[in-house]
């Protein structure tokens, strides 16, 4: 079966985020960018499904500026077979991303679509669910285990109280949580091979989708800094402070 994986180019998770002095956003100039960590887990899961013989082809799609092709190439180096780049320099919000992905799904007709549960920049946690709703698919969100059986997929989900397993009809959408797998690193020969794998580029208009943000960001600020308090000498002093000064016990 064909698996479609959506990946997003975001700020590298090791980079310290700085808010721009004019409060219009986060400073991304000359900042290292990378594949969103949850998307790496999505790619890895697809590759494992292919290694198990469950997936026959992995198509990776990314929406974003020209440079997002770097993340598509990374996914190709990790084991995806071909890439689709929906190129736009505009801000693409979750609903528009879901509409673009829906158009790709209609073209490619994958049996399984895997996405990260959220991107570490906007932290929305929406696109996978929106895509599932728009395409009329079931969804296994925050997955920690994915087992394909015949025309169904069983997804174990990380929920507030523990774990919950659902069975979904295929085609279905899965969004990844951290414990689903540990992504591999791309080897140098695979990075070289990835350069020769096919990568199609298209504009949102080619997919018949107009990118028009519904949410406008009025300002972005740094969070209020918390002041460091005092050091206590021993446990007795700590308990005394908690009881008599902070009055929390």
């Amino acid at each position: 079966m064909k698996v479609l994986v959506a990946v997003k180019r975001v700020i590298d998770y090791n980079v310290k985020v700085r808010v721009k002095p004019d409060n219009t956003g986060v400073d991304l100039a000359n900042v290292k960018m990378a594949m969103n960590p949850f998307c790496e887990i999505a790619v890895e899961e697809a590759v494992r499904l292919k290694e198990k013989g469950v997936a026959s082809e992995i198509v990776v799609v990314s929406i974003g500026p020209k440079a997002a092709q770097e993340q598509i190439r990374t996914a190709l180096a990790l084991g995806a077979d071909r890439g689709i780049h929906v190129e736009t320099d505009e801000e693409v919000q979750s609903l528009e991303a879901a509409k673009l992905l829906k158009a790709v799904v209609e073209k490619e007709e994958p049996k399984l679509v895997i996405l990260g549960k959220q991107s570490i920049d906007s932290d929305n946690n929406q696109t996978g669910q929106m895509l599932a709703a728009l395409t009329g698919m079931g969804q296994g969100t925050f997955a920690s285990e994915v087992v394909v059986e015949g025309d169904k997929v069983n997804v174990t989900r990380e929920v507030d109280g523990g774990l919950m397993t659902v069975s979904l009809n295929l085609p279905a959408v899965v969004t990844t949580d951290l414990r689903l797998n540990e992504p591999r690193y791309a080897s140098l020969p695979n990075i070289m091979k990835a350069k020769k794998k096919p990568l199609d580029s298209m504009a949102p208009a080619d997919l018949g989708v107009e990118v028009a943000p519904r949410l406008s960001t009025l300002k972005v600020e740094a969070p209020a800094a918390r002041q460091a308090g005092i050091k206590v000498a021993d446990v007795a002093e700590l308990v005394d402070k908690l009881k008599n000064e902070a009055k929390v016990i």
Partner: protein
Amino acid sequence: MSILVIAEHDNSSLKQATLNVVAAAKAIGGDIDVLVAGENCGAVAEAAAKAEGVNKVLVADNAAYGHFLGENLGELVAELGKGYSHVLAAAGTTGKDFMPRVAALLDVAQVSDIIRVESEDTFVRPIYAGNAIATVKSSDSIKVVTVRPTAFDPVAAEGGSASVEQCDVVKDAGLSSFVKEELAQSDRPDLASAGIVISGGRGMQNGDNFKMLENVADLLGAAVGASRAAVDAGFVPNDMQVGQTGKIVAPQLYVAVGISGAIQHLAGMSDSKVIVAINKDEEAPIFQVADYGLVADLFEAVPQLEEELKKVL
């Protein structure tokens, strides 16, 4: 304006997070209705009707909603939501699952995980794991919003007298079915709503040592949490994880034991009222956010803490 709040519950009791979301709805202003969708959830509806500030409780009691499957809840809430200016739910794993489906079916954007209401269409939310705070304005006719419960003080659980109406809309999308659930069993309070939380990190060295924290937690009536490092090391299960990728907590007292204070952990607990850090590394970043820091070997300090607490409690 009219606001539909989707109750968070387990079919037998109303979760406190619902009261926090009603508080966010009050901050927006307007009539507040609460939808209780579940199976055999009458007691939940009665509890919701008593919450302060609730106008009407709608009860959708059907097997299709018994396990809160996102496909079914999404269709139900999208249909009911057409009659409201705002649809709100807690940003827990249930709300995060079905609310984007609601937004997509209504063809509107969703505003996720708000921590403040600026006006009826403008909300404040953390981005970049809490390293930046964005103020966003929605131009959609229906605002679909998930609310970070710890950011809003809950409304009173008693005192209201809302009417309770049955809602007979049955939406079974037929796309998904429940297989099983493995919920952590604990007599301690729920991590997300506990007044006191004591968490252990990699410094705990193994899962057995968490027993020391449990002893202290039982004295304080506290919940026990963990850092992602402790979860990744396999000491404790993931549902104990506090942090950007785990649970966001904001208790009266947060005690971090053997936790260095990685950004992703701080993002999950730095709104706590009082923070205590116990760590043998004086340079650990956790001390930069702690109100009271104790530089000590946790294997000595935690048993001492238990003894000292026994004296004063």
